[in-house]
């Protein structure tokens, strides 16, 4: 019987205590913000959309290898000495044309593992967090700056360069052979002469 009245009292009292707390909160300022009107502030280290500074990228493929979900795909082309991609901002010589640098941000898991191995610090996570698209394909970000024409041009150049190199090599080999012949001849002449190139 005593328990009966205790239960009644507890039931009413704890309800009143709870009501007091919610009533107090009625006058507390809201903790939420009106999102599209008021943007949340992103901390310095925020990890959101990936960005690649192509001026600095040397096409080393380290970020793609570090990525656990394979969302980065890079294709490169070797450059020719007369037409180099230039230098990075830190003065490192680039040797490769980056013909394709695609990041599928739909696959990205924002772990930022790609950021750490980059030798030139060109891939980074930015504070941009609004990047919804209507098409799934629009979520593949293409960072490569070269146009298709340029790419064919560079490919051609490289092929030409390669061919030239081959030819040079051949010529060099020929010259070498020639020289060897001459040397042999010279030796036969027993004339100790200095080598000339």
């Amino acid at each position, binding site marked *: 019987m005593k328990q*009966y009245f205790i239960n009644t009292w507890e039931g009413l009292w704890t*309800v009143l205590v709870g*009501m007091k707390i919610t009533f107090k909160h009625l*006058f507390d300022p*809201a903790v*939420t913000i009106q999102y599209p009107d008021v943007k949340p502030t992103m901390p310095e280290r925020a990890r959101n959309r990936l960005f690649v500074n192509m001026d600095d990228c040397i096409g080393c493929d380290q970020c793609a290898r570090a990525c656990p979900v394979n969302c980065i795909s890079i294709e490169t082309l070797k450059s020719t000495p007369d037409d180099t991609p230039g230098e990075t901002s830190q003065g490192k010589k680039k040797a490769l044309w980056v013909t394709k640098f695609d990041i599928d941000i739909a696959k990205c898991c924002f772990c930022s593992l790609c950021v750490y191995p980059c030798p030139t610090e060109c891939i980074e996570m930015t504070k941009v967090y609004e990047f919804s698209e209507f098409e799934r394909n629009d979520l593949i970000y293409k960072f490569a700056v070269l146009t298709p024409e340029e790419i064919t041009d560079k490919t051609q150049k490289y092929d030409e360069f390669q061919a030239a190199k081959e030819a040079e090599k051949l010529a060099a080999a020929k010259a070498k052979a020639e020289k060897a012949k001459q040397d042999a001849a010279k030796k036969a002449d027993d004339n100790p002469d200095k080598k000339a190139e």
Partner: protein
Amino acid sequence: MYNFLIDIFGSPVIAFFVAAALPLFLFILPYALIAVLAERKVSAHMQDRLGPMRTGYHGIFQTVADILKLIQKEDITANSIDRTLFNFAPYLVFIGSFAAFAVLPFSSFFVGSSIDIGLFYFLAISSLVVAGILMGGWSSNNKYSLLGAMRSVSQIISYEIPTAIVVLTMVMLTSTLNLDTITNQQTAYFWNWNILGGAATGIAKFLLIPLMFAAFIIIFISTLAEVNRTPFDIPEAESELVSGFFTEYTGMKFAMFFLAEYANMLAVSFLITVLFFGGYHSPFGYLGNSLGIEWLVPIEQGVWFATKGLTFVLVQMWLRWTLPRLRVDQLMTVCWKYLIPYSVAILLLVGFITLI
């Protein structure tokens, strides 16, 4: 009021329909719009949020937008439902909750129907909701709906008993079933309200006050259960039964259940107001009387009635956003083991006091 309408329209038939429709359009639909918004705003601020903010200033048109959305929605009916019952159920619930307003005295000028069995009518017609809920739950052919409907029916029927006993107490005290008469017995100032002993005098009044408070709490709790509000919202129990008996309803039919719930909340709040808090009477006397402007008095009364009713609606909301939900057997425990014994005790005590 009715005669006044006959004067305006010239035909009793038109006047009849207008009188019937007036509370619906003048009061209850706007109220439902406001109440839904209020619910969201109250809950938001209690939870340190802001609630709807986009449609209009602080989202005041949110419910209008919601209703527009619900009207446009496709009326989905599953294949295996019982179509007749399924379509009829929302109307029955709607009728049940709206018909209850017919006997409520809104002000001395506007009493829908001042019948002598007003209280009886109120309790009877609001039980119609049970039939609607069971129909909806059963015809949905969904296990969650069925469970929700069963729970709801057992709950509402059980909780009608403490409500009825408290009402009986009040009838004993006021010796009338007419809601208008009950209101007029508590006229003028707040010490004449039934919660403060009503018209009784001397030691009887003093003894009645705690009993009336207890009776008020009991009827508040049991009406809360009758309208399926937290902590007694187990028929809907969104964390257990998805949304109970109206899981399968969409669009306007869903909205009807929704509106009926809010209308019910208001109806029982008004009932409590009439029984305990002096109905439409002002606690301090009327401005119209002291200024000598006669037409101001009924308007003031309407405002007072609405204020008192809405206060209880707000308390119901406040409770909803504070409390967890009871289990179905505990619900019955609260009713049969706690509310009914207490209410019977009050009934006896009040009877004893009124005798002496």
